[in-house]
């Protein structure tokens, strides 16, 4: 559902309501039982149109004693297919405008917003930057981003535990994005749920801070398996902790052998040059997937 205007919930409720009304008035479809001389007992869904009672127009498409109107429909559709279709639309829209989008995910308090504030300060002369902020409540993060000089739109998910492609599509409507921008989508702080939802981003980036424990990738493998890059943040605190960086790298590679890994500090700026180089390289690949000779 859309947390900006609430339209998703309304649409779902409307759909359910209209479906219920359709089922209740039902046009010519009736549901009643009556005794039969040949002692078969069943529901009838007769079509009563123009005074014609047609037993062949029941839901099973025919009327045979003993044949129930119950039937099994094979669907075989991905449950996330609607989200994925919206995510594809977002991806096309962003790609057409040359906008490179990253979906930042982590537990609450890993330093995602601080990382963005620092990144905006360091990169805003090179790229136009915009941010979509996802939180359950308040616009505090969007306020911080705007104070840092980037345009931002805040999505409040209410009780929701993750952003979905529908919310991000609406947020894009509210952002005046310059072509060629960098777009950061800061997901709701949650190391579980956001992993399942494609938003249309170019890459998912997971942020883990050194105060959280090196075994987080093993405890929350879905998130780390979904990400293309892991940023190990708050590295300036390493001298004060017993955090084992090598053990953390081993853990994350066990759940995702393809993930890339950078150690950074949003506070001191250490390691961020490598993150910016990664952004520049990946954005170049997105904009020119085949690669032109220099």
């Amino acid at each position, binding site marked *: 559902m859309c947390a900006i205007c609430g339209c998703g919930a309304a649409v779902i409720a409307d759909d359910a309501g209209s479906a219920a009304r359709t089922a209740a008035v039902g046009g010519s479809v009736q549901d009643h039982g009556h005794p039969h001389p040949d002692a078969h007992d069943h529901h009838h869904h007769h079509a009563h149109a123009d005074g014609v009672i047609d037993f062949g127009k029941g839901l099973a498409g025919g009327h045979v004693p003993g044949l129930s109107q119950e039937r099994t*429909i094979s669907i075989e559709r991905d*449950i996330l297919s609607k989200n994925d279709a919206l995510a594809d639309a977002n991806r096309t829209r962003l790609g057409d405008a040359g906008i490179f989008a990253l979906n930042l995910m982590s537990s609450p308090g890993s330093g995602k917003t601080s990382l963005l504030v620092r990144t905006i300060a360091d990169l805003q002369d090179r790229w136009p930057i915009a941010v979509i902020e996802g939180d359950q409540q308040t616009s505090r993060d969007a306020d911080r981003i705007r104070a840092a000089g980037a345009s931002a739109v805040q999505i409040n998910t209410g009780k929701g535990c993750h952003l979905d492609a529908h919310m991000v599509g609406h947020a894009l409507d509210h952002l005046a994005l310059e072509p060629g921008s960098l777009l950061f989508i800061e997901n709701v702080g949650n190391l579980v749920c956001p992993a399942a939802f494609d938003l249309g981003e170019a890459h998912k980036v997971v942020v883990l801070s050194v105060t959280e424990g090196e075994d987080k990738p093993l405890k929350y493998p*879905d998130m780390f398996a979904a990400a293309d890059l892991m940023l190990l943040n708050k590295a300036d605190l390493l001298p004060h902790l017993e955090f084992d960086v090598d053990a953390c790298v081993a853990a994350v590679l066990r759940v995702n052998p393809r993930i890339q890994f950078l150690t950074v500090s949003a506070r001191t700026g250490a390691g961020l040059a490598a993150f910016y180089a990664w952004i520049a390289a990946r954005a170049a690949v997105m904009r020119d997937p085949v690669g032109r000779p220099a």
Partner: protein
Amino acid sequence: MHEMSLVESVVALVEDERRKQDFSRVLMIRLKVGALGHAEPDALRFCFDAVTSGTIADGARLEIETVPGAGWCFGCRQTVPLAERFAACPTCGNPQVRLTAGDELRLAEMEVE
């Protein structure tokens, strides 16, 4: 709990089907949920009644078929069982295994009348 959103998506797919086919009631919904995927069957069951209440799927029975993890091993060139998404081949130890099953999250079929 993102399973709530997932069940809302299931209801949306059922509504889609309702527009295509004529039925007034859903008796049973069968999902295929991969053992290595993002959804927890117990959490899906937990929120199913609450989410489907008042919708076309109100009162439907939920059946969940768990699909075990499996992958194609490039070493021994066969399908092998996988207990983790990126696990090495349990037969030959080759780390090059492509996940072929266990990531499903599908509305498989439903019984309607």
